[in-house]
């Protein structure tokens, strides 16, 4: 092969192949589109189908007979969700548990993050490691650890009876209290980490200036630190609130029969009742509720990225 044919071949190849830039953007985009975004449309589609005794267990929503395309949208799953108290109270229960535990995480996590940001630099690294380590450890195991502690003959009740606070064991495991403990326990690090990342960037001279001008510690904390930490607070709260709404493991292991959470109901519809269309409808409604918090989270992430650049 002569050099000239070689170079024309190369030019043709360059024209056919996507440029490096397109490839760099294209690969992650395509993967995320195919395995993250596209599936949501499928969930939406199947939420309009009917449950059927077949493999897969749902009916097709369109058919093509005699050159006519028929699309059958079955709204039955959604009217079922609206009509049955179980689903509505499960959504409300999830939102309530998520909201309250986000608040508790914020109240506990903010002083912790603040405390870390005020220590020496080497100490900060060690403390961050201590906070980060549990997030890499199976949530299943950390929740399981509480099962042994909270049970009727567990350590907590043994301690309460030994100290004379109660005479008989209090039922904590399999109640909503246990769910709150478990959720705060599991999600606390996700609140502390973004708060710390934000607080550590604060300019200390602002606080010094305020105190020189006679502002009390509490006043400058409330008027300077908290507003500056806004993006961190939003990011941390969303990192807790959104996943907790759909949480399955914690209510299943620590909660009782009265703990109605939507993630658990969806799981039961899917695995126990094998009703894929109803499970899909539950997921679509959950996503509709969460879309605003998710957008808020994405925006705070984008802002955080700009702030650092």
């Amino acid at each position, binding site marked *: 092969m002569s050099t000239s044919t070689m170079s024309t071949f190369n030019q043709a190849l360059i024209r056919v192949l996507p440029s490096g830039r397109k490839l*760099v953007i294209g690969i992650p985009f395509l993967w995320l589109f195919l395995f*993250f975004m596209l599936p949501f449309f499928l969930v939406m589609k199947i939420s309009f189908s009917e449950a059927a005794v077949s493999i897969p267990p749902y009916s097709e929503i369109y058919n093509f007979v005699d050159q006519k395309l028929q699309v059958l949208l079955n709204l039955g799953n959604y009217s079922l969700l609206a009509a049955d108290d179980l689903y509505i109270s499960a959504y409300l229960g999830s939102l309530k548990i998520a909201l309250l535990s986000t608040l508790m995480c914020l109240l506990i996590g903010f002083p912790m993050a603040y*405390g870390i940001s005020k220590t020496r630099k080497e100490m900060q690294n060690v403390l961050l490691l201590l906070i980060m380590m549990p997030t890499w450890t199976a949530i299943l195991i950390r929740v399981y650890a509480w099962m042994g502690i909270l049970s009727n003959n567990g350590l907590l009740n043994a301690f309460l009876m030994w100290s004379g606070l109660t005479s008989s064991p209090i039922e904590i495991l399999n109640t909503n209290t246990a769910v709150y403990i478990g959720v705060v326990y599991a999600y606390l690090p996700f609140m502390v980490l973004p708060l710390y990342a934000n607080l550590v960037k604060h300019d200390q001279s602002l606080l010094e200036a305020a105190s020189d001008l006679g502002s009390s510690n509490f006043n400058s904390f409330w008027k300077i630190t908290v507003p500056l930490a806004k993006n961190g607070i939003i990011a941390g709260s969303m990192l807790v609130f959104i996943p907790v709404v759909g949480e399955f493991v914690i209510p299943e292991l620590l909660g009782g029969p009265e703990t109605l959470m939507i993630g658990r109901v969806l799981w039961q519809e899917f695995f126990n009742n094998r009703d894929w269309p109803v499970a899909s409808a539950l997921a679509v409604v959950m996503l509709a509720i969460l879309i605003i918090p998710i957008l808020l989270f994405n925006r705070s992430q984008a802002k955080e990225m700009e702030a650092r650049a």
Partner: protein
Amino acid sequence: MKRFSFSTLMLVLGLLFIYLPMLILVIYSFNASKLVTVWGGWSLKWYLGLLDNTQLMGSVARSLEIACYTAVAAVALGTLAAFVLTRVTRFKGRTLFGGLVTAPLVMPEVITGLSLLLLFVAMAQMIGWPMERGIVTIWIAHTTFCAAYVAVVVSARLRELDLSIEEAAMDLGARPLKVFFLITIPMIAPSLAAGGMMAFALSLDDLVLASFVSGPGSTTLPMEVFSAVRLGVKPEINAVASLILLAVSVVTFMVWYFSRKAEMNRKRAIQEAMDQTASEAWQPQPQQS
């Protein structure tokens, strides 16, 4: 000063709250008594019993295999995504891209799991793949959400990198690909390692996604543990849980230690280079003249 001591107190209490339950779990895994709430002296029998449990050992091997594949793929995909987010500033659909990268961090797992399963079922009907769900489908599910974590870690590092080093290399005629592999990758290597370890740990943990997209005969370790835990606290599970805690702690500590060491080496090298140029520039040279 008062607020400072309050936050320190909360920090100590918070850390106790995080670590005490795990410590109790580990202590009780050495309990000789079959009753999980009664202390019957120290024993290793639950650990030794694990070795005979072939079903459990099979699921451990499967989980480790998936976690390895996931770590590799998530680092590759997450680094690409982070690079696009930090270096390619303008292109069509950038906002959508940013959203797609960060949304998996918060998306409830039941939604992601269900939607991926429906995708795999639809794909099997349309193109005949995947014929059966198992390791590959779990790997795809894990890679998708772990890549988001890697992207966050790596993009934080990419953003604080000095762009002038990459620009200097390009000015000297290096092609972008060469710059990326010879300059950028070595500089972000610690965060790549951290991201990879994180993906490994997250994949090893995951119960919900794996439950949705796994098929018959591909039970992972968390699925095995979950079905046992549902029936209550058991000493064997205490032992498994303690081993997982140990493995994750060692891995986390290693990541932390090596990334710190690399960071310190880098800082020292920069300092030395600066000292050297400074001393050379200030060298008085009257002897020669």
